[in-house]
């Protein structure tokens, strides 16, 4: 019993350790950038999942709230700088959260009047509305250039001079601390009556009404909570990059958080965390290696929607179940190995074809040779294309054939589950 209890603290402890160590060890460069982006995206995705996974509300305009939080924070930052008020900047994410919360109360009142598809469309419309507004209010949105700020103002934290967020290390710790606190707060929210009733409204809004809850009220409250945390994530972005522009409220950002959350798995608490990290990896790391990363991301997303709607978290859970069953594993080892090899081959073929096409379209001036998988391929030569096509089709066909064989032999995967009260 106590062993299980100790295990529950493990992710929290290891998370705290990660946050403490990573900025210290990787004080510059790539990993540092990833760290900040991840922390921001994790909070953003968790806030989004309060709507999607927990309450069953699909929103296409969530960046409105994180954007409002970012703008509120940057304006507050500039105000502190101008008026020399002695407020520690580290508390500003609260301002961002509250600014976004206000937006959530007003805009949420409008959008939560409907549910399902209509709600999704309203959020799209509201997102476009705010996006179209940004040219109309240059003082607030900063026009083309956005609004810049300087975070080394205001009172130093705890009065210790030198703790004024001037260094990268300090801002990393602040961002990391807020990220950790937000994760804890959202976790706590899910364990409250409101959190559980939100699940009920997601599953069966009608029945929830028949046990005394106004579905509309629940949705509105959850949207307000979600907007608060989205605002915090926006505030962290504002403090970290010291600039806020229309991108922070745009439809692209709304799409990004949707992708990240869904890819991670909306039926699990840790799903959005996983998805945020994977997304940041795609966006920051993969984009260094290939210009087609958005295409890969989109394809990945579509395949998940069709085949694995539980997201990466569900896939990992299934994999864990499969791996634990040793006898069945031995039986299937050959097939599983071949399937994995086929999948990798077809993926390789796809990447080859995409990269070659990209090269021909976008970098035609650089010659016909493109470097994929540490090998040079000549896009002018038919052989390279044939190879790509062969790998892709052979791999896909083999995978499909093996998959159908397994289905016929063993039946559909019994460990496939779909959500629940967020675990």
């Amino acid at each position, binding site marked *: 019993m106590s062993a299980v209890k100790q295990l529950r603290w493990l992710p929290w402890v290891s998370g705290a350790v990660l946050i403490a160590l990573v900025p210290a060890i990787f004080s510059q460069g790539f990993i540092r950038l990833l760290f900040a982006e991840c922390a921001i995206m994790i909070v953003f995705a968790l806030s989004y999942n309060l709507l999607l996974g927990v309450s069953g509300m699909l929103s296409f305009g969530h960046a409105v709230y994180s954007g409002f939080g970012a703008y509120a924070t940057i304006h507050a930052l500039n105000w502190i700088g101008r008026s020399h008020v002695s407020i520690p900047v580290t508390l500003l994410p609260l301002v961002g959260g509250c600014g976004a919360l206000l937006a959530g109360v007003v805009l949420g009142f409008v959008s939560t009047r409907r549910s399902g598809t209509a709600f999704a469309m309203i959020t799209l419309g509201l997102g476009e509305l705010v996006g179209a507004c940004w040219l109309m209010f240059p003082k607030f949105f900063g026009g083309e250039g956005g609004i810049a700020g300087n975070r080394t103002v205001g009172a130093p934290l705890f009065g210790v001079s030198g703790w004024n967020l001037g260094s990268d290390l300090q801002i990393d710790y602040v961002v990391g601390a807020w990220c950790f606190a937000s994760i804890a707060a959202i976790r706590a929210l899910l364990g409250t009556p409101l*959190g559980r009733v939100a699940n009920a409204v997601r599953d069966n809004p009608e*029945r929830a009404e028949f046990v005394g809850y106004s579905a509309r009220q629940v949705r509105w409250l959850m949207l307000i909570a979600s907007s608060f945390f989205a605002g915090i994530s926006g505030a962290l972005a504002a403090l970290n990059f010291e600039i806020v522009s229309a991108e922070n409220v745009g439809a692209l950002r709304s799409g990004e958080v949707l992708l990240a959350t869904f890819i991670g798995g909306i039926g699990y608490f840790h799903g959005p965390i996983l998805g945020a990290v994977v997304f940041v990896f795609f966006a920051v790391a993969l984009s260094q290696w290939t210009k087609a990363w958005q295409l890969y991301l989109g394809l990945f997303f579509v395949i998940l929607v069709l085949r694995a709607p539980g997201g990466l978290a569900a896939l990992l859970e299934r994999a864990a179940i499969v791996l634990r069953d040793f006898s069945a594993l031995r039986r299937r080892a050959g097939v599983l190995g071949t399937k994995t090899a086929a999948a990798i081959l077809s993926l390789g073929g796809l990447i080859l074809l995409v990269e070659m096409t990209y090269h021909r379209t976008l970098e035609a001036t650089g010659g016909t040779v493109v470097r994929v998988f540490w090998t040079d391929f000549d896009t002018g030569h038919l052989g390279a294309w044939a190879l790509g096509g062969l790998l892709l089709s052979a791999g896909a066909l083999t995978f499909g054939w093996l998959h159908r064989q397994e289905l016929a032999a063993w039946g559909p995967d019994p460990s496939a589950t779909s959500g*629940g009260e967020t675990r």
Partner: protein
Amino acid sequence: MSCALALNDVHKRFGRTAIIRGVSMTLSAGERHALIGPNGAGKSTLFNLVSGRLAPDRGRIELAGNDITGKAPFEIYRRGLSRSFQITNIFHHLSVFENLRCAVLWSLGYRYAFWRSLERLADARSRAEELIERIGLSERRDTIAATLTYAEQRALELGITIAGGSSVVLLDEPTAGMSRSETERTMRLLRHVTEGRTLLMVEHDMDVVFGLAERISVMVYGQIIACGTPEQIHANVEVREAYLGTATMEPV
């Protein structure tokens, strides 16, 4: 005797078809009342009108003297009326325990609390555990509702309905699709659980009707054609022709 539920000349039409054509009923507090009639008579529609799923075109519905005509379901629930559904209407992704815990939260006054931890609410937990015992699903406490068998889902459906302790309970065909033994178990459960409460149920199983009900109303084509004690209904010629058939029925 005080009047728990009163319907006064209620009408409802869909498009050009009148489904409920002037229904009036009164139920006294603590009464067990059955509503029977052939399929398509409008019994489910009447339930929907009383519980707030639909609003009547004309007429008045009163719950313990308060006007609830056309109010929203959650408002009616908060005033003390709950209902079950003919087609099971549960929270499919939650476990049995969570289903019932959600059902008791409002009546225990927790509302939209986001500052209290659910695990610490001892009364919510004990109420839910008690209900699980009552409806006989102790072994399935942590099972996800969507994976329960049909009979178990019906039991859960009933559990959700009575969870809040409403004074007026509407049951829509509670024993539909059940075997003989399941039906008898459910009857015993219903008798036990609705003591001191007002019960209005739609039923097709005549054994259940005659075994549980103190009064029976017969509904045909959107109107009540007869209302009275089981003996009176049993003896009523019109009712026999319209519904019961001519075979003799022995009251249980």
